[in-house]
């Protein structure tokens, strides 16, 4: 019952979205071409390039990182990737509007560097703590 209700409302929303998307795409050629490219581009870029690269990097790091450092380093990589991703629209702006006073007018390269430094400082602290702890427990055994 819940299932049918969910499916039906989902289909109704999809139908309305399709009508809107159709109106959008047929009103101008550029809407159809670029809209489709941006729609398909996400899954293609992610499934074909980003996910395999991230997966292989993770696998490689898991193999070369000593055990106490594994979780901190992988976490640090995930956070760094996240911050770098969010920084893209600030740092890559050939299509951005000119600077408006008080909006996107900071030095975002420096801001990202500071944020990444904070992340890796935390990684170093966590890694060292774990390394010392595991060395200590090895000695007591």
């Amino acid at each position, binding site marked *: 019952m819940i299932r049918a209700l969910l499916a039906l409302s*989902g289909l109704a929303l999809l139908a309305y979205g399709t009508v809107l*998307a159709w109106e959008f795409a047929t009103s101008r050629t550029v809407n159809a071409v670029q809209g489709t490219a941006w729609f398909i581009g996400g899954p293609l870029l992610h499934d074909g390039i980003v996910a395999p690269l991230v997966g292989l990097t993770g696998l490689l790091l898991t193999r070369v990182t000593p055990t106490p450092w594994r979780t901190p380093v992988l976490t640090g990589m995930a956070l760094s990737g*996240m911050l770098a991703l969010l920084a893209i629209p600030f740092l890559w702006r050939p299509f951005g509007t000119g600077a408006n006073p008080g909006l996107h007018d900071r030095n975002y390269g420096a801001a990202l560097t500071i944020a990444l430094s904070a992340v890796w400082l935390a990684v170093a602290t966590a890694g060292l703590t774990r390394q010392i702890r595991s060395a200590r427990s090895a000695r007591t055994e």
Partner: protein
Amino acid sequence: MSGLIDRLQPPSESDFHAPAHHEKVTARLGVWLGIAFLLCFATGLLSHAIQKPPSWFVWPAEPVNLYRITQGVHVLSGIAAIPLLLAKLWSVYPRLFARPLVRSLPHALERLSILVLSGAAFFQLATGLFNTTQNYPWSFYFLAAHYAVAWLAAGSVLLHVAIKLTVIRRGLTRLTPGPDMSRRRFLRTTYLATGVAVVATAGATVPLLRDVSPLSWRSGRGQQGLPVNRTARAAGVTWDPTWRLEITGPHGTTHLSLADLDALPQRTADLPIACVEGWSQSATWTGVPVAELLRLAGADQHRPVLVTSLERKGAYRTSVLPATHTASTLLALRLGGERLALDHGFPCRIIAPSRPGVLQTKWVQRLEVL
């Protein structure tokens, strides 16, 4: 996944052994991603309705920070959805390599619905994120595209939940000691990344995080301490001393100079500017209550007003101030006690409570009682 490196060929579903790929992980991430999408969709529809109100829609003027909060939630839930979506997709990534590609017609439709879901989700998050920073690496009209795809995203999420309901219920059983611990570690990293993403950007709207967020698009460098979304130069507006405010109402048309406006009763109020792009900031505004101007024009103070700017073109040259808002709206002449800067709308601008920034019309030339 380790077999892949030795063989150097496309993986199959069974090559993935990491704890992240377990359905307990997928289901938990799905719940949080679903909540983020739901918040984003609801607040987005709300913002759309305020800007293009259907006849039945009423948006209250109180509390004055309401739109600031709903639009902040819109943008921040979208940002939170980015790490959640990436983690969720990584969790189900092995399914991409399931063979046979298509087993039956329902299976084909299910895979198609997932492609729509993934396409719509990436489209919304990418265009939304770029829009917050006023960066447009496309030539289509952002608003129409973001609105249409929102329905596709919401519809495909609901359909997906309906299809996966049994798996979701099974996946949400308790995490127990043992293999579930490494699953929990992946979940914790994802939640941490989500928190970091939100904190890194939320300074655009949350005053407490103003000096904390490195990637906030709102800086403290705006004129008179407030960001400017559209400069006078970009709008093609210059100051002309012969300017008169034109008010049209039941008494005909009245013209008021800046000195006339200064001589009218003034009111000071703390009201926020809350932009659709997610930044917001409260400020102290002083000016003539719109209700006072309506009285001068011989109109009831609860009439809607058409506001027209000195701007020659642009989608937001005019706005309609709804009857619910006229009593508490100012035609602001001063910001923080100083005369408005030209970029903030000098000689006068509309400052209404709980409305999108694009409707706070600057460089007002005419008020017309509707």
